[in-house]
């Protein structure tokens, strides 16, 4: 099954339902499909194998994604935050391609064989402006690859994750009800185009029949203002966004009465932030989603009822589920395995493995999935007795001290319970005696953190081997733009100064 089918059946069933953009200027489902079909005909005439995109969010993006599916050219959104050198390497890897680029980013692109540059303004003038065109009927395309997403590549060159039409349509059809959204519903997309959640949001919204509205780039002020102006009902944010959104709401007094559902993911949400969000937005259903690029987005989620049950419970086993990512989707198999491949018991940490039709587990020219379909995520985690999944971060981030596996997450949770902690990270630094030793990097509100009391709390709640042996105080921790803590950057910085032996 191919992704354009999702738009096709929605456009046939409800052609005049609002689909794209805001207010009067938006497109309905019929014109959404018609625009995409014209772009597809143009792409097919260009004759390039791939279609790449470099630019800010906007309604050109979903049109281009579906057009690529119709034309049979994989869609390759590029990360505009990369340094020019790294960006141009990816541009070269997209060749032969048609590359649509925001006008102000054009000067960043070096001339590359096989890459045809198209200015976004020209593209939009031709395909996005004015009255909707007539739909062009194209023969069904053959390429099975829908999207290539370059993963962040913290070690070595970025890998091109392959998402096939079959992976993406399976994800959409097993998680969303066809036209299940009400006509008044609208989703605000603020994650960048090169993030899997930006891709999956386009597909789920089309199939669900929900209008999508874009923020060109995230600022908390714009997010709150757009939510209010467009009566946004659904949105997805990453943890760093939510805290800033709540600040703006506090400052402006905006209450976002239309908002019904807010999902979050892409990193660990500090419990104080979600507690604050639940208090400030009592009318909103919160969903915590966990997924990877290689799994076509969400594979586990913690729903609104789970959030409420966890916060209301006196049972510590239920209460702590607020920090979980909930239960695996019914359409996904999920196991926690030890290093030797045997299954972990409940409560025992290991590597998260998944299997299902939405799991691609594939990079360009390299299959990373086992013959029996299981994909090793490289994420560390564990399941509780009720089947709730706790993700402890990348397997590489687990600290191995004297043969003992230590998760930074649980130590960070203890630290965050101190009011003085604005932010923190716990890392393993190479060390002669233990292999790795535990160090903490903290951002203190007072500037005078009581690390003795913090160490005592960790010793009491966890155990002495998990107590940081060195403390570093910083003004801020390094994050990427989607809210992921750059542990490796921090680790590299500290390794030099931290370890004398």
């Amino acid at each position, binding site marked *: 099954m191919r992704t354009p*089918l999702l738009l096709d*059946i929605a456009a046939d*069933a409800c052609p005049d339902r609002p689909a794209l953009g805001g207010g009067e200027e938006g497109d309905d489902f019929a014109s959404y499909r018609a625009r995409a079909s014209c772009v597809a005909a143009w792409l097919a005439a260009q004759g390039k194998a791939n279609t790449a995109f470099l630019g800010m969010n906007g309604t050109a993006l979903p049109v281009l994604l579906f057009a690529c599916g119709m034309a049979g050219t994989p869609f390759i959104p590029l990360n505009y935050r990369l340094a020019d050198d790294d960006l141009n390497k990816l541009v070269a890897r997209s060749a032969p391609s048609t590359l649509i680029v925001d006008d102000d980013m054009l000067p960043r692109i070096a001339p590359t064989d096989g890459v045809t540059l198209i200015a976004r303004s020209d593209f939009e003038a031709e395909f996005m402006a004015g009255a909707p065109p007539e739909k062009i009927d194209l023969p069904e395309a053959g390429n099975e690859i829908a999207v290539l997403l370059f993963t962040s590549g913290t070690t070595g060159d970025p890998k091109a994750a392959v998402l096939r039409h079959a992976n993406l349509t399976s994800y959409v059809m097993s*998680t969303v009800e066809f036209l299940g959204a009400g006509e008044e519903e609208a989703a605000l997309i603020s994650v960048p185009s090169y993030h899997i959640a930006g891709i999956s949001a386009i597909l*789920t919204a089309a199939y669900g029949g929900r209008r999508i509205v874009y923020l060109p780039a995230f600022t908390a002020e714009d997010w709150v203002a757009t939510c209010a102006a467009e009566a946004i009902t*659904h949105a997805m944010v990453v943890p760093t966004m939510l805290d800033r959104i709540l600040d703006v709401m506090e400052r402006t007094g905006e209450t976002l009465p239309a908002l019904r559902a807010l*999902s979050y993911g892409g990193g660990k949400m500090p419990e104080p932030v979600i507690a604050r969000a639940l208090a400030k937005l009592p009318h909103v259903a919160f969903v915590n989603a966990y997924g990877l690029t290689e799994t076509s987005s969400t594979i586990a*989620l913690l729903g*609104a009822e789970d959030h409420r049950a966890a916060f209301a419970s006196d049972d510590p086993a239920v209460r702590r589920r607020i920090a979980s990512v909930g239960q695996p989707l019914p359409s996904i198999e999920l196991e926690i395995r030890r290093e030797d491949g045997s299954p972990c018991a409940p409560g025992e940490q290991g590597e998260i493995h998944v299997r299902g039709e939405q799991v691609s587990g594939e990079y360009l020219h390299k299959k990373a999935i086992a013959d029996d379909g299981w994909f090793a995520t490289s994420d560390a985690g564990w399941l509780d007795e009720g089947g709730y999944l706790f993700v402890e971060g990348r397997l590489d981030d687990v600290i191995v001290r004297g043969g003992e596996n230590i998760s930074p997450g649980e130590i960070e949770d203890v630290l965050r319970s101190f009011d003085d902690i604005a932010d923190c990270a716990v890392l393993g630094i190479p060390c002669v005696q233990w292999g790795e030793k535990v160090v903490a990097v903290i951002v203190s509100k007072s500037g005078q953190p009581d690390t003795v009391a913090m160490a005592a709390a960790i010793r009491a709640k966890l155990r002495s081997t998990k107590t940081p042996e060195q403390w570093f105080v910083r003004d801020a921790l390094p994050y990427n733009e989607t809210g992921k803590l750059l542990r490796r950057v921090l680790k590299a910085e500290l390794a030099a100064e931290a370890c004398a032996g």
Partner: protein
Amino acid sequence: MDLRPGSRWKSAVCDAQLVVVRPPSSAGELQCGGVAVVPIDDMKAPTGAIDPAFADGVVIGKRYVDEASGLEVLGAKAGAGSLAFNGVAMAIKGAKPLPASD
């Protein structure tokens, strides 16, 4: 009748439109209102001659399954006829919708 995933069909007797989500394990005929369905681009108007034994309707957004063959079909447009595979009525697949997560 090539009931491959993603193929689109429509009822010969009512307004229902269908998408195959999972193919059947063995060849057979998808029927709506008691009559074989036709490809989506078939230009003939529906006849309206619905077999009363297959008149429970197709609901938009619902999934219909044939247990024996594994055939699964999505209702892409509603209609008055109901679905069958080789004469055996297909059942509505009960699935609780998940909350939006992206």
